[in-house]
């Protein structure tokens, strides 16, 4: 009984939103139905990419030493770490919010803030299949111009974010990552 109550607690926002969507089904059937269709499609897409991503996360957590990750992507890794972060983010699949748990794991493994934000930035905009799709829709000139801006912009955002984060806050972020 207690367990069920805890489960309801954890999923309360989801249950509320679900109820709202059902109400919508009665108030505005067209929109409500449409909404459930979109949600179902997105859910199926998400559930198809998440299992391998979380298994890879688990493998990384268990098999890769914190020291190894730090050597390649930590504070002292220099430009090498940034390049690895860029490639990791660009080789990804899935919406941006999927990148956050992975970023959490990178933090847990001692990757420095700048490289974590480069990873998130690359995931958001320089994903390879997306770039190709962008070129076919909006032209190569547009895609290349945006890509050049994006690479500079992502690096700039990552550097500014790292520099502007006080030590205490950085420590708090790493502390949070330990519990993941």
């Amino acid at each position, binding site marked *: 009984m207690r367990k069920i109550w805890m489960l309801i607690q954890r999923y309360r926002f989801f249950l509320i939103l679900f109820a709202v969507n059902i109400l919508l089904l009665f108030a505005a059937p067209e929109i409500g139905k449409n909404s459930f269709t979109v*949600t179902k499609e997105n859910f199926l897409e998400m559930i198809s990419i998440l299992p391998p991503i979380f298994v*890879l*996360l688990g493998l990384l957590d268990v098999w890769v030493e914190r020291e190894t990750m730090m050597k390649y992507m930590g504070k002292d890794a220099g430009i090498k770490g940034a390049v690895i972060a860029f490639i990791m983010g660009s080789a990804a699949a899935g919406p941006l919010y999927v990148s956050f748990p992975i970023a959490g794991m990178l933090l847990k493994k001692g990757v420095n803030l700048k490289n974590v934000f480069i990873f998130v930035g690359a995931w958001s905009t320089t994903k390879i*299949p997306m770039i190709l799709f962008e070129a076919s829709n909006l032209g190569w000139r547009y895609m290349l111009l*945006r890509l050049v801006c994006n690479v500079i912009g992502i690096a700039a955002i990552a550097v500014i974010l790292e520099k502007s984060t006080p030590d205490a806050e950085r420590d708090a972020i790493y502390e949070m990552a330990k519990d993941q």
Partner: protein
Amino acid sequence: MFTYFLYGAAGGLLLLSFTKDKQKTFMVLKKAWRSFENILPQFLCILLIIGMMLSVLDADAISHLLGRESGVLGMAIAAVFGSITLIPGFVAFPLAASLLKAGAGYGQITMFITTLMMVGIVTLPVEMKFFGRRTTIKRNLFAFIYAVCVSLIIGGVIG
């Protein structure tokens, strides 16, 4: 295609892990499940919010609002839509292409695409779980400022 690659990599490595150490592999799966379940409530909420939002604001509605506007007002509307809504790239780029045909400028659609991908108001709670409140807000703010810069640049060069 990338999804298959992910499955291949995860499956192969998991098998390798199993042949090396059964105990550890069991731990891998336990951890994988735990971190998945940890984030599942938020993911489900996001999916429902996106679903409801996209059913009200479909492609027609957005192109109606953005297509006819131009200049600063169009930019502002693009920024608001892009920041709140989350549309997968496979929908966003064709939509951007049709917005161009409907009369929107390169500046506006760049603003729309960039904020769409980098700024996420709906996903703030998930992001905060990993980066904390202040850093999350800062990241989104910087991404927003960057979106303004890049759309001015691209609007100037191509538009």
